[in-house]
């Protein structure tokens, strides 16, 4: 059954409210009434209405002022202004302020039906637009999942068998192996494919930002919360939510996440209304969650809730037979995007690529090919175009902390754990270096 459109009628005259209420109820809409702007605004804060039909002249706050406030609350609200005394100035002002339409009371029954039908059409178009945008994002690049190797065929088979179900999936694998592509492929082959795939990079957000990102927030919930905002769980209704770098979320967020996964309902930050959403959850991580559970760093109950199916994406070094196909694919991709004629790769260069360990996996290979096309002669990629001497991008570490930890460890090892010399090399004082060693639990290699 189609979703019931909700209408809020705001008019100080009871007879007008009653008339419109009865009319819309007979049309099958969900209807609520408010006798003044203040009450209407408070109703809009606690409930969502797709269409607001408001009188322009009301005691206290008038319709135009209310229109501005509604627009600041929800930019996409459809507000129709009604008036008994139409003037061009007020009509123009209402439309300038974002009113969907402007009507003079009393109206013909047919005008009212047309008005609401147009507004409903606008709402459906906006929703459809959002869904299509999400769908386009979710479906593009699914073809990037390339490889005939046994390891990759196993992954593709697992995707196929898990896609049709509603089970939670954890995708594991080293950084750069294409975990997000696997998530997209699962979504694109699932019955949820016509609904959004919403991705959240948990590692990129602080705890409070992640909370607001996942659950949404009400206007004024915190500094900068200027609008009511839908959370990612809400956006993923009927679709899939992809939580990347799940291992990075804080213990508090782990509890929140577990609660949402169990009840499929949540409350926006700063709100009090329970929102339900039907989503499928897919997570990805490059860490060993099981070990994290054993060390008490990740909740066991959440782990089992998420880990219904585990798909492990193999590193590129375990499927070197896929490299020629991947190289060919990336050459075509970047030649098209850079508007260059089709290029090929020298046999010697390809052979060296097949021997390269690729710690950054496919992402590193892709970057390497992109660079080679930029710096190459435009016809054939040769060995000199490939920076195989050292890794192009060190993607084996994900966070600044990891980078800092590795660097400090390297310097300490270089200077035989001489703290003073190492601190000098790092341009920090000894206390800072001690604190960092303690923070990262660094110890000399045995």
């Amino acid at each position, binding site marked *: 059954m189609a979703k019931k459109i909700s209408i809020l009628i705001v008019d100080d005259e009871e007879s*007008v409210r009653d008339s419109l209420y009865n009319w819309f109820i007979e049309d099958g809409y969900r209807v609520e009434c408010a006798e003044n702007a203040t009450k209407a605004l408070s109703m809009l804060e606690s409930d969502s209405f797709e269409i607001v039909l408001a009188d322009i002249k009301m005691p206290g706050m008038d319709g135009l002022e209310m229109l501005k406030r509604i627009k600041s609350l929800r930019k996409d609200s459809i507000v129709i202004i009604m008036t008994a005394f139409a003037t061009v100035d007020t009509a123009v002002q209402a439309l300038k302020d974002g009113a969907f339409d402007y009507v003079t009371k009393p109206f013909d029954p047919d005008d009212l039906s047309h008005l609401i039908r147009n507004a409903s059409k606008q709402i459906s178009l906006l929703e459809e637009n959002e869904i299509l945008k999400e769908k386009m994002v979710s479906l593009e690049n699914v073809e990037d999942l390339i490889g005939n190797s046994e390891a990759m065929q196993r992954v593709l088979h697992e995707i196929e068998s898990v896609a049709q179900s509603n089970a939670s999936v954890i995708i594991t694998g080293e950084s750069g192996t294409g975990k997000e592509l696997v998530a997209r492929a699962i979504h694109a082959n699932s019955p949820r494919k016509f609904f959004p795939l919403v991705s959240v990079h948990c590692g990129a957000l602080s705890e409070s930002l992640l909370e607001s990102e996942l659950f949404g927030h009400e206007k004024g919930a915190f500094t900068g919360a200027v609008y009511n905002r839908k959370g990612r769980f809400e956006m993923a209704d009927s679709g899939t939510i992809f939580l990347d770098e799940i291992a990075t979320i804080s213990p508090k967020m782990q509890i929140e996440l577990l609660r949402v996964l169990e009840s499929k309902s949540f409350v926006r930050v700063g709100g009090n209304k329970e929102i339900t959403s039907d989503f499928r959850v897919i997570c990805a991580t490059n860490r060993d969650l099981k070990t994290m559970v054993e060390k008490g760093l990740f909740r066991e109950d959440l782990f089992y809730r998420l880990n219904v199916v585990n798909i492990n994406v193999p590193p590129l070094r375990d499927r070197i037979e896929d490299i020629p196909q991947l190289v060919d694919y990336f050459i075509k991709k970047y030649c098209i995007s850079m508007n260059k004629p089709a290029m090929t790769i020298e046999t010697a260069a390809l052979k060296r690529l097949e021997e390269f360990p690729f710690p950054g996996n496919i992402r590193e290979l892709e970057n390497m090919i992109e660079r080679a096309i930029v710096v190459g002669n435009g016809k054939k990629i040769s060995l000199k175009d490939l920076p195989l001497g050292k890794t192009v991008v060190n993607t084996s570490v994900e966070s600044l902390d990891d980078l800092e930890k590795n660097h400090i460890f390297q310097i300490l090892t270089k200077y035989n754990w001489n703290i003073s010399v190492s601190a000098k090399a790092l341009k920090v004082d000894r206390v800072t270096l001690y604190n960092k060693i303690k923070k990262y639990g660094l110890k000399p290699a045995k």
Partner: protein
Amino acid sequence: MNLENITLISFGYFEKGLLEIILDDVEREFSVPVKTREGYLDLSDYYDPARKQYNGNELLKEIESRFASDKIKTLGLFNVDLFIPILTYIFGQAFLNGRSGIASIYRLSNERYGIKKDQTIFVDRIRKEVIHELGHTFGLIHCSNPTCVMRSSTYVEDIDQKDHLLCGKCKANLIFF
């Protein structure tokens, strides 16, 4: 089912036998006996001189308070032009899943639009309007089926285009007390 009957109460002048013609069709749609009777109301209390029309909201409230009963669906029929404050006119209105409704035959005749009188069309429109408003009292909302009698009609042409029957979906959704 506690519903005893549907009562159509006419207020003002109605041609003799006009309502009796439609009784069988109304009864068939709702499977409830249908009665007619005459009622009296001083309509001047509901007249709006500025609009030269009669206030449908007030009339509906009057029908509900004076004539409705829990065991009967009551429809007040008028031969005057009805309005509600927000709309220029209405053919009728009813309490959704309630006890009462009203309808007017004022705008249902061809003569009202400068067209030659056609009694068959006139009666057909009354039949559809009566079943439509009663449908609301049985909990039915407007239907998107183009031939269903519960399809919303804002002009007489709309009424002419639909049938006087409830579609299968609406029939299945009828709510009895």
